[in-house]
């Protein structure tokens, strides 16, 4: 399969064989340009302005044609004889039907709100350098601007990803991994006080007060060495508490826990004519991501009512609280009025938004069942803080 790497040293390869050498610089640049546009169509005129700004229109047109031909010839075709680049009369794009791998696209596809730790960790590993490291095309100002823009973007994503990953590790109780991730963050931005704060705090929470103090000292020295300033008041207070063994550290910890609201990006799917299908799907998705311990404190009666449309809630509740499934399930026998289900769902959302920002994205909304549509409409108008519909 064709593999394209644009982070760090750029590389185009197929089954381990490097193809870069066979491609001209501009042909490679064309591939990276289209990749950066993430499948969007770019007009031929625009491509010519990116890559051959100083050439006459005829020369630029010829160059583009030649390079497209080169790409078509040298890059492998898939089973349906499709090539990477979709070239049409007015413009070009990456052919979305063509199967290939690209580090940038993987990074862009990964949401920092993802709950999948492995996915986040894997994506983090893809950052092995700047976007198109070492690239600069003489006189191609727009192309160079594009590189610059993507570099900033990638750097921003990397920082967000590291922070998200560290938070997820911590939420999962993997403090060692969280610490390692914050340390990686410190390599990206060595004078970042938020990062230093989290490293010191995590050392402390892992019972290593000496390491916490040493890290603070090292950071303080580095901050002075680099910027000639002292750490901010919050960090200094943490250090003072560490030295004095003050109990306020525990309240700091609590405060941090309260502050660390997470964002849940939930995808809900619709099936026409099946009542509550979307709502049931949303509950199922929420169950995958929320803190089960937190959920255990949710009002039992609401759990019973909601169990009518989503039995996973019942299973999850039993596992977390240790209460027998039957005991709760028995209560759900018989009919539960729709109004109670609706009310219980709204209460669940209200309850979860105390700790989470919930962003709901509805796929194939045109197939939404009527009951779910009304509930969603109600939620939208009720203005629950922390809940949003994308």
């Amino acid at each position: 399969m064709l593999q394209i790497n644009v982070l760090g040293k750029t590389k185009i390869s197929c089954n381990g064989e490097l193809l870069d050498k066979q491609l001209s610089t501009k042909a490679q640049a064309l591939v990276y340009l289209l990749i950066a546009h993430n499948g969007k169509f770019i007009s031929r005129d625009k491509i010519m302005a990116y890559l051959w700004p100083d050439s006459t229109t005829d020369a630029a047109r010829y160059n583009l044609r030649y390079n497209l031909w080169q790409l078509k010839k040298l890059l492998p075709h898939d089973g349906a004889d499709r090539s990477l680049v979709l070239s049409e009369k007015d413009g070009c794009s990456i052919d979305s039907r063509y199967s290939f791998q690209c580090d940038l696209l993987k990074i862009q596809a990964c949401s920092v709100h993802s709950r999948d730790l492995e996915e986040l960790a894997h994506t983090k590993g893809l950052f092995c350098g700047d976007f198109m490291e070492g690239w600069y095309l003489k006189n191609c100002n727009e192309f160079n601007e594009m590189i610059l823009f993507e570099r900033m973007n990638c750097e921003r994503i990397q920082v967000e990803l590291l922070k998200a990953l560290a938070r997820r590790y911590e939420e999962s109780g993997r403090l060692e991994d969280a610490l390692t991730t914050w340390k990686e963050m410190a390599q990206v931005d060595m004078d970042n006080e938020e990062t230093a704060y989290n490293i010191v705090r995590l050392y402390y929470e892992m019972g290593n007060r000496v390491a916490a103090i040493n890290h603070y000292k090292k950071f303080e020295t580095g901050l002075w060495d680099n910027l000639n300033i002292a750490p901010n008041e919050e960090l200094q207070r943490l250090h003072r508490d560490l030295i004095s063994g003050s109990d306020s550290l525990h309240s700091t910890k609590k405060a941090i826990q309260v502050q660390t609201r997470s964002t849940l990006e939930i995808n809900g799917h619709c099936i026409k004519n099946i009542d509550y299908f979307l709502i049931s799907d949303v509950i199922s998705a929420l169950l995958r991501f929320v803190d089960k311990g937190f959920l255990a404190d949710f009002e039992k009666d609401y759990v019973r009512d909601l169990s009518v449309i989503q039995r996973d809630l019942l299973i999850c509740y039993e596992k977390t609280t240790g209460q027998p499934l039957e005991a709760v399930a028995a209560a759900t026998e018989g009919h539960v009025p729709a109004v109670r289900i609706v009310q219980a769902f709204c209460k669940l959302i209200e309850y979860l938004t105390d700790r989470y920002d919930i962003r709901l994205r509805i796929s194939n909304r045109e197939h939404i069942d009527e009951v779910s549509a009304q509930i969603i409409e109600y939620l939208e108008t009720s203005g629950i803080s922390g809940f949003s519909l994308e």
Partner: protein
Amino acid sequence: MKASILIINGRCLTQDQDRICDWLAVDGERIVAMGQGDTYRDVLSEWTVLIDARKGTVLPGFIDSHFHVVQTALNSQCVDLGDAKSFKDIGDLIYERYKKEPNLPIQAIRMDIHNLKERRFPSRQDLDKICSDTPIWINSSEYQTSVLNTCALLYYKIPFTVQGVLFDEKRMPTGVFQRQANAMLRANISNQYSDFYRMDALQNIMPKVAEAGITTACAVEGGPIYCDKDAEFINEIIKRKSVYLDMELFFQTLDLDRVESMGLHRVGGCLYVDGTFSARLAAISFEYADAPGEKGCLNFTQDRMNEFVELCYRRNLQLSLYTIGDRAIELALKAHERAVTLTGITGLRHRLEHVELPNAEHIRMASDLGVIFSVRPIYELRWGGKGKMYEKRLGENYKNSNPFRESLDGGVLLCGGTDSDVCKANILLGIHAAVNHPVEQHRVTVPEALRMFTCNGAYAIGKEAEKGYLKEGYLADIVVLDGNILETETDRIKELNVTYTFKSGELVYHA
């Protein structure tokens, strides 16, 4: 005993009380004899190199007590924008370098927006117009701001996510980097320099340093604005004796473990307790005349300073702190006073660098504590006196800056430095400046000024038993001037030139 070198017909100002000799003899790396008239016959042999000083002054080799050696060396390779008055001037100077070395990244220094008619930093697009296919990195005069062209933005590792990156309305970087971003950018670029590059640059400036008569320099390296690798590099150079110049490393860091692991017995240099008058960051007790309400700022609390100073005492490290304004000086001296009281340790010869606005009480405290003032007389030539920067910033208080006379009379030992590359590494200009202080009551005599750059400089690094004087048994670090400095009109001292410089008996400069 025969001399390998014999300097005759000179006015040898030995700095040893008032002793003046007519000749001195060197054998190997030491001074072996001195005397009057033609009594040197006994040491003359057929192999003796005879130097005729032509009635010029012969002095101990100059000791520059504050010299950013690596920065000076690296800057010698840069385009100097100190005289640029507009973007066009910047463009002309940079383009000239580009034509000479088209394939090399261009680094420029000393851009001062106050001198530019545009009164702003150029953007990367402005720089792209000068040259778009070679990286350009411009440093502001105080190194607090960097400006890059687009090529440099892609060439260097850029910290876009940290504070201090300036963006335009399209959220694209303007090319201007300040604060954290500038510090990281500087660190990223400086860390890319190989030690071979540093060595090359260092070798490059050695002839100029020798021409200035400097035989020993306090190399103040590392820390904010600069690069810790510079300090490590200088430490290696000292161990290997790779250049003629004797250097004493002042590592500008708070990391005392690191300092000790490098085998150093001192720490500091530009350990910034406050900032400059120019940036209105010097901590003063009154408001800046041109910025009502502002009094500069301290980079340390008294507690933090106390803790650090005490640690230095307990570890027997000589400490050198950068203090400019009176509040910074007071903070530092109070910390010393506390540390002496707590530890009982004295005699470490701690120093305050620059120390521009001490009052009578500070002078008394420094004298009692044995704290040395390491001063920069050239600042007064550049910024002192009526109508210059000090007056703009300090108002009438400019008359109190750099009170050399009062400090000496109050019993404080003064050693002098040039602060190269902020000022030129020109010791004779420093002597001239101390003698011709714009405020007459602060002036010192020529012999006093000479001591600042010779024996006092040696004392301030604990080397007074081997250098800083012309004495039998001392290192033959010798400077010969082309005139008699004691008889030169004081306002013409800067016109004197060095004709010979010897370091440990070796001729390193000859006019």
